[in-house]
């Protein structure tokens, strides 16, 4: 069969089919989830103390992880992009390290570093700080898995920013701090927003590192993914409802921080 002189079995058609299949694969679970939502009892289920607590913990942990990632990730991205020094490639590889850790392994590693018997356990104990199985541990676990997304987004943004604008600002009398705040930051604002969106979404969905390093204590470290996992064993309807809620909140967050996320 021929259309427009081209075979039906063209690369274009094959790709279009494959693309459709992948998108369907993304969409079907979502449809399945929505199809099984017990809308009638949804409100009652979600009002429960545990769900609200878990939601609050997720929102706060993901937001704190994003803020920490930005505060330390921007300087790191800046150094990676603007400075040249020996060992820079090693440093760049280190940034990717948390991404290749399976999250559970990340949690174990965090325990091995900050746990009571971990590398820094003695130091932390001396300072009177106990991290494992606290809310702070949940925040650290979320930061560990999500910060690389922000660093990568910021580094790409800084690399494509026009440095000559900073030079122009300097000739106009702007000192480094002013150049940074009035020229550099605004020119990478889209990267910051896109990076924050990815970071936040990744942090909000964090499960493995959190349950390993922070444990599963309702009201303290039980974030939404943990609560969903727990509900799954006893209350399928509740699990589905919470999943849809978490998904909805993440989508809203992505839309609020929207636009440049998918664009290059």
């Amino acid at each position: 069969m021929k259309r427009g002189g081209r075979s039906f079995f063209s690369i274009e058609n094959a790709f279009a089919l494959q693309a459709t299949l992948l998108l369907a694969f993304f969409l079907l679970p979502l449809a399945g989830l929505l199809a099984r939502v017990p809308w009638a009892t949804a409100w009652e289920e979600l009002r429960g103390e545990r769900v609200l607590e878990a939601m609050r913990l997720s929102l706060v942990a993901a937001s704190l992880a994003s803020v920490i990632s930005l505060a330390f990730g921007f300087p790191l991205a800046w150094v990676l992009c603007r400075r040249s020094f020996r060992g820079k490639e090693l440093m760049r590889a280190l940034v990717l390290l948390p991404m290749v850790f399976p999250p559970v392994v990340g949690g174990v590693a965090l325990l091995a570093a900050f746990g009571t018997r971990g590398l820094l356990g003695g130091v932390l104990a001396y300072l009177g700080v106990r991290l494992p199985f606290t809310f702070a541990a949940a925040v650290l676990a979320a930061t560990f898995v999500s910060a690389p997304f922000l660093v990568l987004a910021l580094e790409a943004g800084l690399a494509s920013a026009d440095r000559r604008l900073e030079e122009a600002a300097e000739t106009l009398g702007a000192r480094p701090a002013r150049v940074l705040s009035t020229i550099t930051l605004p020119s990478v604002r889209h990267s910051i927003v896109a990076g924050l969106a990815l970071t936040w979404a990744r942090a909000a969905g964090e499960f493995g590192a959190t349950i390993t390093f922070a444990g599963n204590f309702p009201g303290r470290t039980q974030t939404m993914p943990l609560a969903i996992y727990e509900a799954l064993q006893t209350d399928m309807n509740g699990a589905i409802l919470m999943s849809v809620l978490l998904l909805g909140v993440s989508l809203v967050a992505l839309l609020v921080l929207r636009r440049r996320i998918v664009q290059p």
Partner: protein
Amino acid sequence: MNLLADVRLRAGSFRLAARFEAAAGETLALLGPNGAGKSTLVRAIAGLAPLEEGEIVLGEAVLERPRDGVRLPPPERRMGVVFQDLLLFPHLSVRDNVAYGPRSRGRGAGEARRIAAEWVERLEIGHRASAFPASLSGGEARRVALARALASEPETLLLDEPLASLDVEAVRSVTRLLRATLASFGGVKILVTHRPVEALALADRLAILEAGEIVQTGRPAEVSRRPLTRYVASFVGLNLVRGVVRRDGPQADVRWEGGEIRAARCEEPDGADVMATVHPRSIAVSLERPGGSPRNVIRGRVGSIDVSAGSVRIGVDARPPLFAEITPEALSELRLAEGTEVWLSFKAAEVEVYAG
């Protein structure tokens, strides 16, 4: 305040070793072909490219002198730069772009706004004050860049190709504003351009930059009359030969490795390195070897033919390569085309010789 710039630096394989001085109130055009190092020189003066040797001195103040470890950062140099690519801040309105300098120099928000409004008006872009750079036309953007540089209260102006890539209408309006701006600015004004006509129209003095070196400086009239390099000669429309004098009474031959040219008058001593120029209009073109009096007869091949208002400029590959200017009638009569073999001839009296 006078500016002394002695800039020596390397950028990759490119070497810049340019020294010039400019007096307060003077407009100095830095003129040179593309790739001569003009923009690098501007960047160095502005403090954006560090010197390896040399110095930059403004009035009594040493802005940079590597030998003494002195290097003022750009914010402290008070250079008002108009960059070739303008580099307007895309996230700021015209008004905020222009107010950026005064704000950076410590003025309050209100005062910076007032200063910006004043410059925006003077450069006739008041109606675009709230616009963002992306929506400006080429001429408007150029005026904003100029206003932004002037509002930062500079002591020196560095204008890098301020008229490049503008349409005819915009060139006219920007030139008018530029002229007014230059006239009212009391400090040194450096105008960088690769277009001789701009330099001749706007500058008090020219400094010619070729391959990273200043090869000639002088008032436009001096430079036009006595070019020192082939590049300068070509933009003022003269043929130039560099050679050594061999005197013969009042007359002289100017010799170089490819031949010699006879000059009727020469005031330079025997053995001196000199320039010899001859105007393209003084060169006759013929197909046969000319008879009669001309002392300089050179054979060559037509390499290019440029027809412009009322005259034809013929580039001839000969030793030396020469341009001849003939009438359109002569062109059709001689049936010249690229590759045609021709004889060029000119009188010894048409050759001007001066020290290089």
